[in-house]
């Protein structure tokens, strides 16, 4: 079982209480890399104990936003405050934990030695360090592998240790950059349990992913980011309601030439992907007229279904792109 993260973490001597109670406030953030605008006026706020999902395809600007918050990217304009302190200040560094997408560990050190190293980098020492290391090992269910070299661990274990290393100094705000990349379903579920534990302890989390089901399961609110802009945000239900209202999604599959299908679907205001057409309808009765029109156009219908809109459809609707493009 995953052990509680907060239940016995000691107050860190390194962390003083910040000025503001708002864990994270980002205002009008802009970052350009040459001609590419990675962040284009991003504004968001994170409440205490809240989990905000940052949803977007590769290259949307998620990692740049996260790296800006941890002070690794200097924005061209805009402001970031972590508990009221500037992002690259020592105060901000003390209060936030970063779990990068990469396995940022020392492969020739053991699990315990890795955690000790990162703890010391955050100013921990002595009994506090020892206790936090023990608790993080327990939280990641790696206590029995504490003396194992990292290079000998399985992929899932490395991921869990990677997360534990970001939490060794008991941050109140945690930034997770696609922490489940490349792990098997069992390990993924294990990681979800660990994150849910953190949430239950009131830690504020920003969680970036391009897996819709992860965002739906873990996050209180979701911000959809594309081309460096937050194009929608709210709870899962709010996003669906704002995007689709009471409308439903009709998914129809046709046989025949893809180009012809795509052309016809576009004319009718839908999206076509690999011969599958998606239409938004106000009422299920509109389906019959849609099918009649396809027959008149000479398209051969293979199957049709009515779907309740979800985040993936919201994303497709808003951006015209698949989430995992």
């Amino acid at each position, binding site marked *: 079982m995953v052990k509680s993260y907060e239940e016995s973490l000691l107050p860190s001597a390194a962390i003083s209480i910040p000025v503001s109670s708002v864990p994270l406030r980002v205002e009008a953030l802009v970052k350009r890399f040459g001609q590419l605008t990675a962040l284009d006026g991003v504004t968001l706020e994170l409440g205490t104990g809240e989990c905000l999902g940052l949803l977007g395809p590769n290259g949307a600007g998620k990692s740049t936003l996260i790296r800006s918050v941890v002070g*690794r990217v200097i924005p061209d304009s805009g402001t970031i405050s972590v508990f009221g302190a500037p992002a690259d200040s020592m105060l901000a560094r*003390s209060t936030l934990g*970063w779990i990068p997408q990469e396995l*940022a*560990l020392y492969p020739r050190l053991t699990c315990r030695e890795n955690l000790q190293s990162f703890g010391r980098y955050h100013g921990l020492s002595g009994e506090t360090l020892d206790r936090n290391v023990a608790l993080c090992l327990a939280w990641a269910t790696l206590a029995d592998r504490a003396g194992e070299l990292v290079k000998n661990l399985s992929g899932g274990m490395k991921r869990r240790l990677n997360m534990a290393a970001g939490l060794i100094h008991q941050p109140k705000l945690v930034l997770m950059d696609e922490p489940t990349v490349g792990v098997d379903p069992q390990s993924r579920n294990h990681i979800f349990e660990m994150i849910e534990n953190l949430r239950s302890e009131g830690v504020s989390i920003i969680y970036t992913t391009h897996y819709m089901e992860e965002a739906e399961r873990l996050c209180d609110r979701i911000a959809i980011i594309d081309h460096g802009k937050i194009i929608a945000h709210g709870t899962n239900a709010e996003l669906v309601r704002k995007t689709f209202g009471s409308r439903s999604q009709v998914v129809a599959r046709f046989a025949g030439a893809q180009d012809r299908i795509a052309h016809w679907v576009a004319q009718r205001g839908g999206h076509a992907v690999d011969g599958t057409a998606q239409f938004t309808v106000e009422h299920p009765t509109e389906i019959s007229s849609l099918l009649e029109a396809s027959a008149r156009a000479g398209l051969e219908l293979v199957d049709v279904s009515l779907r309740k809109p979800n985040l993936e459809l919201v994303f497709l609707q808003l951006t015209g792109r698949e989430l995992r493009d």
Partner: protein
Amino acid sequence: MISAIVRTAVVSLRRDRGALALSFLLPVIFFSIFAVIFGGRRNSTPKVAVIIVDEDHSPASQRLVQGFQHEGSLVVKTRPEPVRGAEQHEYTAVSAEAAVKAGAAPVALIIPRGFGENPISFGPGGSDRLPVRMLEDSSDMVAPQVIAGLLQKVAMTSMPDLMAEQGSKYFDQYAGGLTREQRDRLEQGLRALRERRGSGASSSGSSDGGIIAVTTRAVVGENKDNPMVSFYAAAIGVMFLLFTTSGAAGSLLDEAESGTLDRVLSSRVTMTRLLLGKLTFNSLLAFSQLVLMFLWGWAVFQLDFWSHIPGFVIMGVCTAMAVAAFGMLLASVCRTRAQLGALSTLLILVMSSIGGSMFPRFLMPEAMQKAGLLTINAWAIDGFTKIFWRDEPVSHLWPQVLVLVSVAIILFVIARRLARRWEYT
């Protein structure tokens, strides 16, 4: 099929600058260095410095000194270099010995008072003559041999009349003397020889024969069991220190690639602290290596380690700092481990060859000896030689300490500036 494989390999090599440099640039550089040192086509033949003390001031001793001064392959020093423009007193036997110990020259010749009364002799009958004293630094295996040979040669070329006179004395002694006519002709010949010497003409001749008696004494390393071990311990040690610290500094590149560096820099660790930490570790690593090298030298090759601990520590720390900073700089310059490997191999081998790690710098042409001073190797080896070879006090290490510490600071500052690329995006 084979051509496709060759084509792929060629394209890969063309894009790997490090491999290209190791394949084509390093061999040419190495060849050139060795050719300059050992080959015949060089502009500046290394000259041997010799200190000459004329205690006799007789015509014979003065002619001998002049004969040495006419030798193009020697740099003859009769007095120390001027200090702030002020001419120094001529060397004495004592100051010449001190100068050899300090490394001002590898050999000193002391022409004793009374030398001119009976400067040369042939064969075993010259037991009454006073020998020239040769003081040598035996770490230089070449210079004393050169001077010993040249002494005999100069005697023959600068004092031919004295040799002839001495020959006629032997003739008188063992063959009953010359007739008046023969003696007149001999005098005529001797006059011609004196005139020829006065015109500055020289002749070549064998340096063998022991015409001038010489006693030789090693004033540096005279009590060493294994004199060259300290040199090689330092020379080889420094070269491998450079390799080790460059490799260790490469951990920065590994950490940057794995994302660990980003994570570390998002903690309370700043880039300056991180680099200082790496510098400290690499310096300790290098110092440990030096300790191991010298302990091994002591245990296996009778290197006198324990009586030179203070000097060793000073030079060891300074050398370790300099090589560690050098490694940090290379790691900061390079983008990948492969680049670092290629660049460090190239630079370290070149530095080691001209800096004296592969063969002593005194064997090199003057220009290359001066170029060697641009390397960490040369300053480190000079410092260790002062301690272990010349038994100099630690206060004499200040030039080496100053240079190595300055190099360490300058290289570290440059590395810190270059490391900005990892600091923020």
